[in-house]
């Protein structure tokens, strides 16, 4: 797009926009699906000429630079998955001051001008934890496998988790570690837990199916596991008998919602600053079977067409093609 798109407030269907995306975790299934959803939405809307991806493994300082790069390259709106809650505020305000709205998906940022589109991560942490503690009858040793250290979503989930924990004095956390939302790390930590301690239940921040694999192959008795709505995990919950667990919904396609919001803003529609999806705890076989989609990428969620926000079809996300690709 060119400069006057920046203040795209003047509406007008035929003008086209450029979306910028800043993601700091590459090669992660959840993030990949998030990006595919953004591309799909951009394509579905038909008024996006290009999606500029700033997509690399880096830290806050790196993401600040990346967002500046996106601003420099004159995108009309920026969708970020924030590496830090408040460190990005200044650069986000800078973008806003240049007429570029910033939409933070998956996790909140404290910047007043930022739009926030996410699953409610505090809820995510809490509902899953409560389910687990109930399943353990309020008694026992729990391994707490968190996400990416310092990521707002991780801290929010921790808030929820701790809130739940406070109500269950009988529960003891015997293991706490960060998986960095990396399945292979999850597997390793699973092995560590198997070999070096005895636990009654495991809460994971969505690194679930590789963990379960470790249990099944180690031939160790399963303990209740809380994970996310990863297709592979759901399959395990359905097929493996003796495995009890709950999938807490955390659809990556929230990225698509972010893109939708961004474009609504650019098209001059009025949009809420905050769009929260309330996570659901799914543990009943029937519901699980309803969620399962054969041969979908292991780490992906089948919940893509998030009504009423997105206008793409599931297939478009799977194809993962943006405008002009």
């Amino acid at each position, binding site marked *: 797009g060119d400069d006057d798109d920046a203040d795209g407030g003047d509406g007008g269907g035929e003008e086209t926009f450029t979306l910028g995306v800043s993601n700091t975790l590459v090669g992660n299934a959840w993030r990949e699906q998030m990006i595919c959803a953004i591309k799909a939405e951009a394509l579905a809307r038909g008024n996006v000429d290009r999606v500029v991806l700033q997509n690399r493994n880096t830290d806050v300082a790196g993401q600040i630079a990346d967002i500046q790069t996106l601003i420099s390259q004159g995108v009309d709106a920026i969708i970020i998955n924030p590496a830090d809650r408040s460190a990005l505020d200044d650069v986000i305000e800078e973008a806003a001051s240049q007429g570029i709205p910033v939409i933070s998906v998956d996790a909140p940022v404290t910047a007043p001008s930022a739009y926030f589109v996410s699953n409610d991560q505090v809820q995510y942490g809490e509902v899953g934890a409560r389910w687990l503690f109930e399943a353990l009858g309020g008694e026992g040793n729990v391994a707490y496998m968190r996400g990416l250290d310092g990521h707002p979503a991780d801290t929010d989930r921790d808030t929820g988790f701790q809130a739940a924990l406070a109500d269950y004095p009988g529960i003891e956390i015997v293991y706490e570690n960060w998986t960095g939302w990396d399945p292979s790390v999850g*597997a390793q930590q699973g092995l560590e837990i198997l070999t070096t301690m005895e636990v009654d239940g495991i809460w994971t921040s969505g690194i679930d199916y590789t963990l379960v694999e470790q249990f099944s192959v180690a031939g160790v008795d399963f303990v209740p596991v809380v994970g996310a709505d990863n297709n592979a995990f759901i399959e395990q919950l359905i097929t493996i008998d003796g495995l009890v667990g709950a999938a807490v919904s955390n659809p990556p396609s929230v990225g698509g919602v972010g893109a939708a919001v961004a474009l609504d803003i650019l098209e001059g529609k009025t949009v809420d600053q905050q769009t929260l999806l309330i996570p659901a705890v799914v543990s009943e076989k029937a519901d699980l079977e309803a969620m399962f989609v054969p041969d979908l990428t292991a780490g992906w969620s089948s919940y893509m067409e998030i009504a009423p926000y997105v206008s793409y079809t599931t297939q478009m996300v799977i194809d993962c093609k943006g405008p002009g690709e």
Partner: protein
Amino acid sequence: MTAAAPQSLVASTVPWKRWVRRHGWTVGIWLILILLIGYYATLIPRFGGFQVASIVNNGTPLVFLAVAQGVIVIAGGIDLGVGGMLVLSSVSAARLMEGQSFEATIIIAIAILIAAAIINAGVGWIITVSNVPDIVITLGSLYVFQGLALSVLPNPGGGTSDGFRWIFTGSSTGIGTNPWPAALMIVIVVGAVSWWMARTRSGLSLYAAGSDRTAAYLSGIRAARVKIVSYAVGGALAALAGLANTAIAGRGNATTVGGNHTLNSVAAIVLGGVALTGGVGSLIAVVPAGLILFFLNPILTAMGVDPSGAQVFQGVLIVIVMAVTGILEWRRRRRS
């Protein structure tokens, strides 16, 4: 030197002294490994086949990677790219082997090993024609391999055959109580490679080139060819480490940081007593060194040290071990 010379020569090296100097390190490092395992056994509730298997199996990739680095360093180079090669081979395997029969996966594995050897030979070739320091070119190859890995497998996935997983892990699921296949694998591969290096002319020429380029040159060894060979062998071994990775995880993951693997491989050969200046060292000692490095993590977790502590510990270990042996060695040199 007069007629006296020969006596003094013999005198200056009592057989056992020489033996200690030659193999002391190897023996020592094996002992340390055994002690560590014993200590670990006391730390955890139960210590059986499963625990042993999980150490041997999961240690295999680092062992192979360390041996890869060892071959190249002994020949006078250093390959920062091995970690990248591990990741690249691992994800390529995961992508190509998904849903294939056992036979097919074996063929794919062999193809990958060959490809890796050729690619890394190319790296060695570039080093020789450009005579740019190894560390520079291989820094480049590290980036390249890591990047290629990401484009081969954008997000974690792929798969392999049960039989293939069994070869490296003694179980079709990658985990179990059977350490033997992995152990055998290590013995055969490392045994073969170190026999080749210590006994055959072509192998010895790696030591020669690493030890003294001109002298090697004058004894008719073609430094360029040696370098290329060492990189080819190293590349294949690094790829083997990658295959082991895939067999263990049952899938590939391009986000694995190749750089860290490289650093660990260097740490391992250093612990294994391979001189980074080239020409000196035994691959037999590199095996336990690799296992120890892998092994630190479980031990420290069992001891309840937190991850950051674990890292500090690993660093301090390397520094202390190296510094101490360095000082001793230097003392020895000074004296004799």
